[in-house]
């Protein structure tokens, strides 16, 4: 078994065993559901909005070559530098180069999952740069030396008490249970960091081809400070973040806010169109846009699953996923957790090592139902399973299903095997639930059903025999 698959088993076992933790996550999401539904109801036609969003993203993804170049041309014309990064190494190297060339000492960041994907903080810190997360949730997990737990709610797994303890230990602040006070403690630290930083790194929610702008949506105002106070702004984005037209944002901004956080709109929605322009009193002197591929073009080449590039990283699929709600974000062992992560990680990081994420699903489809851009998530999990079974079949499964199809392909053999099952079933009772029980994975927590003394087939034949 690949290490990643074994780690997933270990971690998911550990997290599911922690009932108070599971209850905490379920409760935390309860508030989100109410707010999300309230705001969905504010749409004249939420399903119609989903259709339009899906079509718009599909159009963008199918014409990346046109839209990305249009975006580049427009933003370069206003003085931004665009770097095309084929992979994570190239993206990190470019950002490091910019930092070194400009004698950067301190770096502040606003929320960017793409930087988690390329492990940017590690690379910057290794080169001696101080890196400081300014999103409150990200700051908290950074202090804990953890990765974000959730795409949108990085610290949702922590209680106020845990955050207070963390701040006491790391910042020497007084104990408090008040969210406002906790926020003020972090804010005091952050304000200093904004002024010290000479490079700000942000993510990007949408890149508008028509106008050559990037759109960042946030609730804390930290992205505005991150992108405007330091003399250099680096915006990092996956190539799939493109939207054709400015007016597309009138759909995508409220949709992202609704699906992502149960809000009508996020508090701050800002467009960035380049560095400080001649005659402007403020803004960064340099703006760098890093367009990251990192195997997204391989997903693009997969016609069956290309729609997954339409993901706007709202996290709605995580919030409704019964797997995510029970195993939490860390079990996945990769940047993008939950259903979307289980779909795209095998593409971004290799099917062989990550196909187990596609198997770890009951295929309930709650994710697909929730996805605002209508990515066919749970069916893509099936396709990943098929592709995985073709390229690297599990020998045990291959033999088992070979036997299964042999049996089911011959109804008489199927009935003979069921008869054997009736003979051997009482033996299972002797070892039920013990280590010798071949059905232990089931019987550990659930009673195993007893085979009926005769099958429906036999009963029908006996009662209605001859009649067909």
């Amino acid at each position, binding site marked *: 078994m690949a290490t990643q698959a074994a780690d997933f*088993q270990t971690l*998911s*076992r550990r997290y*599911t*065993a922690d009932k108070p933790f*599971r209850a905490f996550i*379920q409760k935390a999401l309860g508030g989100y559901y109410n707010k999300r539904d309230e705001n969905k109801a504010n749409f004249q036609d939420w399903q119609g909005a989903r259709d339009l969003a899906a079509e718009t993203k599909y159009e963008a993804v199918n014409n990346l070559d046109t839209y990305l170049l249009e975006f580049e041309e427009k933003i370069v014309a206003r003085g931004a530098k665009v770097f095309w990064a084929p992979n994570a190494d190239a993206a990190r190297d470019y950002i490091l180069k910019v930092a070194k060339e400009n004698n950067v000492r301190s770096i502040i960041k606003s929320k960017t999952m793409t930087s988690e994907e390329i492990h940017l903080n590690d690379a910057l810190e290794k080169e001696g740069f101080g890196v400081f997360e300014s999103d409150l949730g990200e700051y908290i997990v950074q202090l804990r030396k953890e990765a974000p737990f959730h795409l949108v709610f990085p610290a949702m797994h922590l209680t106020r008490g845990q955050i207070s303890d963390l701040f006491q230990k790391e910042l020497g602040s007084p104990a408090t249970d008040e969210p406002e006070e906790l926020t003020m403690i972090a804010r005091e630290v952050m304000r200093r960091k904004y002024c010290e930083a000479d490079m700000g790194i942000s993510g990007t929610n949408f890149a508008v081809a028509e106008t050559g702008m990037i759109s960042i949506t946030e609730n804390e105002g930290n992205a505005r400070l991150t992108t405007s106070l330091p003399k250099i702004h680096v915006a990092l984005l996956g190539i799939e973040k493109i939207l054709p037209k400015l007016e597309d944002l009138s759909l995508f901004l409220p949709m992202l806010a609704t699906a992502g956080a149960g809000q009508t709109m996020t508090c701050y929605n800002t467009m960035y169109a380049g560095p400080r322009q001649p005659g402007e009193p403020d803004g960064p002197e340099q703006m760098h846009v890093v367009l990251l591929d990192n195997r997204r073009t391989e997903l693009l080449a997969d016609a069956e699953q290309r729609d997954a590039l339409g993901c706007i990283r709202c996290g709605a699929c995580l919030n409704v996923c*019964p*797997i995510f709600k*029970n*195993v939490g974000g860390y079990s996945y062992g990769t940047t993008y957790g939950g259903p979307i992560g289980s779909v795209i990680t095998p593409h971004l990081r290799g099917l062989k090592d990550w196909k187990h994420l596609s*198997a*770890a*699903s*009951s*295929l*309930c*489809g*709650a994710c*697909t*139902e929730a996805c605002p851009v209508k990515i066919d998530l749970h069916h893509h999990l*099936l396709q990943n*399973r098929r*592709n*995985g*079974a*073709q390229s690297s*079949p599990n020998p045990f*499964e*291959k033999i088992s*299903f*070979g036997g*299964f*199809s042999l*049996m*089911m*392909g*011959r*109804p008489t053999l*199927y009935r003979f095997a*069921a008869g054997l099952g009736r003979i051997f079933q009482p033996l299972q009772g002797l070892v039920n639930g013990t280590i010798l029980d071949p*059905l232990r*994975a*089931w019987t*550990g*927590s*659930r*009673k*195993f*059903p*007893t085979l*009926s003394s005769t*099958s*429906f*087939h036999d*009963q*029908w*034949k006996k009662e*209605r025999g001859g009649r*067909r």
Partner: protein
Amino acid sequence: MRISLFVPCFVDQLYPNVAWSVVRVLEGLGHEVVFPEGQSCCGQPPFNSGYWDEARSSARVTMKAFRDADVVVGPSGSCVTMIKVFYPDLFKGEDDELEARELAAKTHEFSSFLVNVLGVTDVGAKFDGKVTFHDGCHGLRELGIKSEPRALLANVQGLELVEMSEAETCCGFGGTFAVKYAPISTAMDEVKCASILSTGADTVVSNDSSCLMQIRGMLEKEKSTVRSLHLAEILASK
């Protein structure tokens, strides 16, 4: 109407009473029920695990068994989904794609067949009890079945329906997932069973025996007095 009965393999082996209940309800409405004996399994286990060649050989047996059927009815949202939604995918580009599509078109889940094809919501059943309904995921999200079982239950004399908060949340069965990822499957089952118990219902009903196997497995292990019954069993009660 001459109705061909599709009995999923585990219903055949574990829950023959569910199949008989379907027979009684349909015959009670004056229809002829036939049972093509060549059927075995729809092929969902290998299909869901990614072994599509193996799934096809099992599916072909099902297709052959129902070749001459006018209409096929099965008491499982999941197995009917396999035929109705996934056979066309599974046989895409194969020689028998057309046959797969034809079977998909004429196959119906039991409650959907009663309400949407036969136009029946009252089958004259009587059942004394407080029940809560579990929406199987395949029936709910692949076939769009939500109101049909409730319309049928509403007309059962003596029956009180109480909705659970997690009615649409997966029970955690998911076929081989239930044993491959037993701790996760169990955690999901716990959420489901807690929601069932919080309604105070004495019976949990579903239109899918596979979900009920998962739910019942935990309820029985925990020695709960809550019974679990297939919708067909309720509708066949007099």
